[in-house]
């Protein structure tokens, strides 16, 4: 159903856009309104270590999440934003391959492990890109799942077709 598809797309764009904006809002507000800024930093804290060494900076303050997490949020938002512009064929191909979620997490996992074992100290850009690549495939499955939820008609096999 077209209406519900666009409804969910708009809600997801709004939500992921707000979350992405919050990442930049926290440092921007740090000097202007420290209380609100502190609240935003606290909101993101259960999902990110927020270490300054691993974060980008804006206006002299670190972003609300590290570079990898920034990539994850940005990838999800951009991919969601572009979702209606992808061809149907490509969407179908991606949506029917949920293993992609795991495959695209491999670069992030390798980079994470190498950093953890101190074998490599990857630059912020690499961390950012590995997060970006992984999360940019997520909206395809996100919307497919929402479509399944929104399906109100009974499954095809239970419908009695009338002969033409």
């Amino acid at each position, binding site marked *: 159903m077209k209406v519900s598809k666009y409804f969910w797309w708009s809600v997801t764009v709004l*939500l992921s856009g707000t*979350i992405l904006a919050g990442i930049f809002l926290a440092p921007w507000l*740090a000097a202007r309104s420290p209380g609100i800024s502190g*609240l935003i930093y*606290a*909101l*993101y*804290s*259960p*999902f*990110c*270590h927020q*270490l*300054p*060494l691993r974060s980008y*900076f804006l206006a*002299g*303050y*670190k972003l609300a*999440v*590290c570079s*990898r*997490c920034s990539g*994850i949020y940005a990838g999800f938002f951009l991919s969601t934003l572009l979702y209606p512009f992808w061809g149907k064929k490509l969407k179908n191909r991606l949506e029917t391959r*949920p*293993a*992609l*979620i*795991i495959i695209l997490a491999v670069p992030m996992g390798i980079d994470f492990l190498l950093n953890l074992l101190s074998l490599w100290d990857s630059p912020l850009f690499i961390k950012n890109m590995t997060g970006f690549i992984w999360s940019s495939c*997520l909206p395809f*499955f*996100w919307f*497919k*799942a*929402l479509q*399944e*939820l929104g399906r109100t008609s*009974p*499954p095809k*096999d*239970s419908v009695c*077709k009338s*002969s033409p």
Partner: protein
Amino acid sequence: MEKKQPEYFIPALIGGALMGVASAIPFLNCLCCLWAVAGAVFSFFLLNQKTSFPLQLSDGLLVGALAGVIGGLINFLLEIPLTPVNLRIGQRFMTSVSKFMKELPPGWDELLTMDYQAADFPSILISLLLSTLFFALFGAIGGLVGYSLFKKEPPKEMNDETPIPQNPGDSQSGF
């Protein structure tokens, strides 16, 4: 034919407890959103074990989101006593790291001298609502990851797309 409904609550409760507790414990919470996603993956795993029929992607989304809501509430309750402890541990870590640095990154000084301040009630309420929403979103994504890892393939007869004859004449060959 109605779609069979899996029972989401118990798997979501267990996965939610895992994500809520792990995201609050100092040091463990340094793994970014991993715990929120992992808790939801675990919820889907449990749901998949419990359910005899193949689950859909939307089941992953739902059980993950529910686990996220539960995880968000548990995490919020645990964060109340743990926030000052986390702050002190973080400051101690940063102090020891700064000894080896020639130049401190911007904002570092303020983080080292920051004191814990208890928040007022409206801030706590907003924080609870938003953090639960965040956990639910990450949980939903974790549910999708769980589906991709543990989904059961539907039995072959369900995949068979043998056309059902609409009237007796249709089943005869030669048409």
